[in-house]
């Protein structure tokens, strides 16, 4: 089973056209293997992106270098998956 250890989901809210453009360009950076849960759609609208562990520091550095603020929406994706799995196992199945 593919694990999501060390992966995070970042939330970026572009506040200028320049920031929006930069965030849109992230979608083209295939080597980062970013998974856009909410794609860029406009100023003030959140962009949620799941980031594989090896891409985490490069992406954060890229955002910070461009002055784009972000927050960590999901600190540990695997922890949520584990919690979901344990909930399913706890569910009585007859």
């Amino acid at each position, binding site marked *: 089973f593919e694990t999501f250890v060390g992966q995070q989901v970042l939330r970026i809210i572009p506040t200028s056209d320049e920031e929006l453009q930069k965030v849109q360009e992230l979608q083209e950076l295939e080597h980062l293997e970013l998974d856009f849960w909410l794609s860029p759609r406009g100023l003030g609208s959140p962009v949620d992106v799941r980031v594989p562990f090896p891409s985490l520091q490069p992406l954060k550095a890229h955002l910070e270098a461009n002055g784009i603020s972000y927050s960590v929406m999901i600190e540990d994706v695997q922890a949520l998956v584990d919690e979901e799995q344990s909930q399913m196992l706890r569910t*009585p199945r007859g």
Partner: protein
Amino acid sequence: LPVTTSTFDYSAYHTLDEIYTFMDLLVAENPDLVSKIEIGRSTENRPLYVLKFSKGGTNRPAVWIDTGIHSREWVTQASGVWFAKKITLDHENDEGLAAVLEQMDIFLEIITNPDGFAFTHSQNRLWRKTRSKHSGSLCVGVDPNRNWDAAFGEPGASGNPCSQTYHGPYANSEPEVRAIVDFVKSHGNVKAFVSIHSYSQLLLYPYGYTDTPAPDQQELHELSGKAVAALSSLYGTKYKHGSIITTIYKASGNTVDWTYDQGIKYSFTFELRDTGLYGFLLPAKLIVPTAQETWLALKVIMEHARDHLY
């Protein structure tokens, strides 16, 4: 596995087999209302089942609802299960629903992308696409919401098989999509079509591929406004509504643009909860509230379609 749909746990996530078992139980318990139709097979040869809720008649006007076309959006399949049970519970007691079923049939496809759904349980919880393979690429799957014959392959979808929005090699290349296309065309009397996704709390109508307003834009906007008002009335969940292209972004080859261009006026796509901290890992305790509030909006759309048959 539960022996009746009354003991089924609607506030938990379930596997493909469990949901298929649920469907069989529901059909067995409600033989005069519910039947199960196989409309095709997936890439990996899984059956594509649709539940038909009907009080008789032949080829009556119909409402189509699908959930789970993006496999990782688990709250949608779980909501589909809840909707199915809700219809059987309310079909006589709920005046609005009873009136809909007096004139119309309801078709509900709960697991629209079974290969992807099975993959989310066995390999990758966050898998979104189908599981079709493409020559010349190591990447697997097509976005089944970019694979329809509505401005297929134009801007608003990706030509890269590794992208989450890969449109596929040609329109209807995915058997999961083709099966619905064939069903809708052969039925010929679908009047409302609602395709359900998550997450970002939106109710959207055509178009996604062009910013030219749909000819019925005003009616669709008013109807979607009423639907989200009904939804919000239960728990105060905030929804936006509007056309796909003006509310989110350009999306070519998407489901409801195709259905609208086929003449299904009441074509909508939902984005269910949540915008919060969980994304596609919505806690199971939120399944039932999500389904409950969504059902109120679905009823508004169904009742409007019934009152405005065309």
